[in-house]
């Protein structure tokens, strides 16, 4: 089951990677902090405004914690993308955890299966320009987010 698709900017399929993607494991808590730092430097390199950097790093922090806590650990791939007009930062979080049974429910504000505030998925979706979520019990969960420079 898939949810999301392209954000208002569209053109996601056409965006090409500019620079080599970085892959980081998310296995222990300190990895979440490291993911934030890597996403921050990618956002600076893609010339996102300070507010957009902050939004992207916050979204990455939420998603990395989801990967760790609900996905039982996984990895993230971060790279800078270019759609011909603008640059952006893309982060793809993957885990091979149990998956999310009801994606629509999981994207509702306040819904939580754990101890969080239930803003992890729905909140981070509002912070980015593109958001794609794929989940199944067999393949685990993949979340792909992009934030474009303005």
């Amino acid at each position, binding site marked *: 089951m898939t949810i999301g698709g392209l954000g208002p900017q569209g053109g996601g399929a056409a965006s090409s990677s500019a620079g080599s993607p970085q892959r980081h494991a998310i296995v222990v808590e300190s990895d979440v902090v490291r993911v934030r730092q890597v996403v921050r430097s990618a956002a600076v390199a893609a010339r996102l405004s300070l507010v957009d950097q902050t939004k992207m*790093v916050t979204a990455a922090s939420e998603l990395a914690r989801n990967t760790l806590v609900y996905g039982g650990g996984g990895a993230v791939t971060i790279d800078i993308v270019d759609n011909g007009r603008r640059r952006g930062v893309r982060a793809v979080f993957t885990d091979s955890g149990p998956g999310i049974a009801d994606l629509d429910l999981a994207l509702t504000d306040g819904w939580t299966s754990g101890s969080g505030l239930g803003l992890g998925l729905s909140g981070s979706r509002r912070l980015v320009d593109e958001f794609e979520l794929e989940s199944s019990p067999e393949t685990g969960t993949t979340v792909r987010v992009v934030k474009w420079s303005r």
Partner: protein
Amino acid sequence: MERIPVLKLGNLLLVSIQVDLEDRLALNLQDDLAERIVATGARGVLIDISALDIVDSFVGRMLSTIAAMSKLLDAETVVVGMRPAVAITLVELGLDMPGVRTALTLEHGLALLGAEVRVRRSDDTDSADRADLPGSIEEPTGPSGTAVAGTVVG
């Protein structure tokens, strides 16, 4: 495991978060503050987050929990120094941080807590147990150092 230092200043506790917060560290801070409020009888907690370049839902929840918990222990919490980009992001994230009082700067925060603690002390003057705590808050001064009351001639 490293911990975030909690400083005692009169009847206030002062915390300045200077590192990128790992979840464990945030939870430790919660525990430490609860213990220190009880141990010192502090009436106010100031948390400076001006060095934090993001506040996600986990840290937001920590701040809410600290505020609620300190209230139960009869201490007021004020969070100071939130950056504009962080505030904008929190609003977008949908994180309200209910019950958390905030102030622009440490000075504003001190003034806010000072006024707060003064009001409370006048509320319970008959209970002498806390009235003679050492290092009580002085008369608050305006944030810019000017008198709190002034007159504009129209």
